[in-house]
């Protein structure tokens, strides 16, 4: 019987210890405990961490005004209707069209455009909000747009300008897509305008 008592008390002690140890893990707002945690928290200032050195307390600062990143070529057209039309008349796609470029354009289109413009460019994407319910189809040959022509006749420059600055309810996408990537998407949109897919 004494032996049994010993076993019982040992079990109780272990169960208690287990309950304590089980609470080491992460759950909800509690990230869990760390053993010697010095390398989980960076000594340097991470991109998104607070920063006492800068006045606004943020590490990721905006570029100094008037500067551009190395290798960046600014877009020479303004965000106006006039320049939208001008870009449509003047701009040519600097990237030569081939199967690889078209495939990359398609992949980018699927990531950045499809949820509004639809897989076939018919304007029926997966976003259900009414504001994004009336998106014109790229194959539309009837309705005249601001360009004076229909959606199926939009020029490379129009599409590039719209991607860069946005148009109507569409937002600007220059911060998410590089210039090359935008031109690749333009190639694919031209493909969709043909309505062959």
């Amino acid at each position, binding site marked *: 019987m004494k032996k049994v008592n010993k076993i019982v008390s040992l*079990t109780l002690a272990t169960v208690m210890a287990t309950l304590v140890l089980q609470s*080491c893990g992460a759950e909800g707002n509690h*990230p869990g*405990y760390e053993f010697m*945690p010095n390398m989980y928290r960076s*000594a340097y200032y991470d991109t998104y961490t607070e920063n006492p050195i800068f006045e606004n307390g943020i590490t990721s600062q905006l570029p100094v005004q008037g500067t551009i990143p190395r290798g960046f070529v600014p877009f020479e057209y303004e965000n106006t*209707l006039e320049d939208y039309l001008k870009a449509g008349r003047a701009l040519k796609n600097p990237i030569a069209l081939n199967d690889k470029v078209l495939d990359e354009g398609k992949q980018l289109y699927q990531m950045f455009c499809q949820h509004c413009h639809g897989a076939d460019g018919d304007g029926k994407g997966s976003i259900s909000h*009414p504001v994004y319910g*009336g998106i014109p189809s790229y194959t539309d040959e009837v309705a005249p747009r601001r360009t004076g022509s229909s959606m199926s006749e939009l020029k490379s420059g129009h599409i590039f300008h719209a991607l860069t600055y946005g148009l109507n309810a569409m937002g600007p996408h220059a911060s998410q897509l590089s210039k090359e990537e935008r031109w690749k998407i333009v190639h694919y949109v031209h493909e969709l305008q043909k309505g062959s897919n």
Partner: protein
Amino acid sequence: MTSQHCKSNGRKRLSLFALLFFTTIQLGFAQSIELGEELFSSNCASCHYLGPESKKLIGPGLADHTLEEYTTEWLYSWIRNSAELIASGDEAAIAVYEEYNKSAMPAFPYFSDEDLDNVLAYIEQGPAEVVVDVAEVGVDGEASATSNTMVVLVAALVMLLLFAFVLARIKNVLKEIKGQETSSLLESALIWLKQTPIVIALFCIFMLLYALGGAWDGLLTVGVQKGYQPEQPIAFSHKIHAGENGVDCNYCHSGARHSKSAGVPSANVCMNCHTYIAGESESGKEEIAKIYDAIGFDPESRTYIEGYEQKPIEWIRVHNLPDLAYFNHSQHVNVAGVECQTCHGPIEEMEVVEQYSSLTMGWCIDCHREHKVDTANAYYHDLSENWVEKYHGEDISVDKIGGLECGKCHY
């Protein structure tokens, strides 16, 4: 007889005619609204809001009798070609044009009078109100699934107790017949335990082993943040954005293809849609208002407040590797073609993001041992030819091309 017959016949005809007449009107009316709705949603809805509060989108909101101050003829010519109307010097047209920052409305010259009547009829009636809180429905569904399992378990337990009780009764009845002393279920259980301490010992040993296993698991969770699910400053739902609305992960985390970090999108990416979507439900409006508050956007006038002191949205980091380990998103996303969900789990179903994987070294290595390298990938240039030769055309996993070398991740 004949005249009466005639009369009743005439009445019948008249009522039949009336019925037909009204049905036609009714049908015609219903159809026009329906057609109007179709035209409106495909041509007008992306610039004009139609709802209880007359909100400005690109153009004016059309509810609350906005159109009453214009004649039908004026609306006809405005919709068909607003630019012409403005050029003709129409005062009302110029006023609207100026109010909306000279953004021109596309012309719809191909709309017939009937089309326009249908659209205007639909605008006058307003949209049918359908407000379904999808999030709540989803949560209810999950909760009921869990409670179902509980019900089954409780039912099984009740059944077992019932069996034990019935058996004890049967035993007592048999004992009574024999003239022996009877004992209740609890009493007999206690007597049995006292007589056989080995049962207690065995039970304790079982518990002990189970507890030791639990303690071991507990120790292994030290420094592993799997399951961490912090409440964020804005209750952003990946379930709504990536799941229901089908927005690609790369749309917001555009850094994943280019850099080490997938990146937390800056507020301008939110504003690509939320300039015009200010929320439907109360909680949605509240959360989206937090973005506006951070960047100084006035949702009424849809303009950014000049000189506003913007403040950062302080998102809480969920996934955190210690500095001793290097990880690069672009390598895994672009070259290996690993799906986001492989490491991050079913993100598109998460209301609040949770760390799905353990992010331990063992977890990394398991995948590097299993994941096959795509030797056709142009990233490897001619290296892949050597590998194919070296491994005689066998499948090449990441560990075979140096995926287990210490210096790959620790340097």
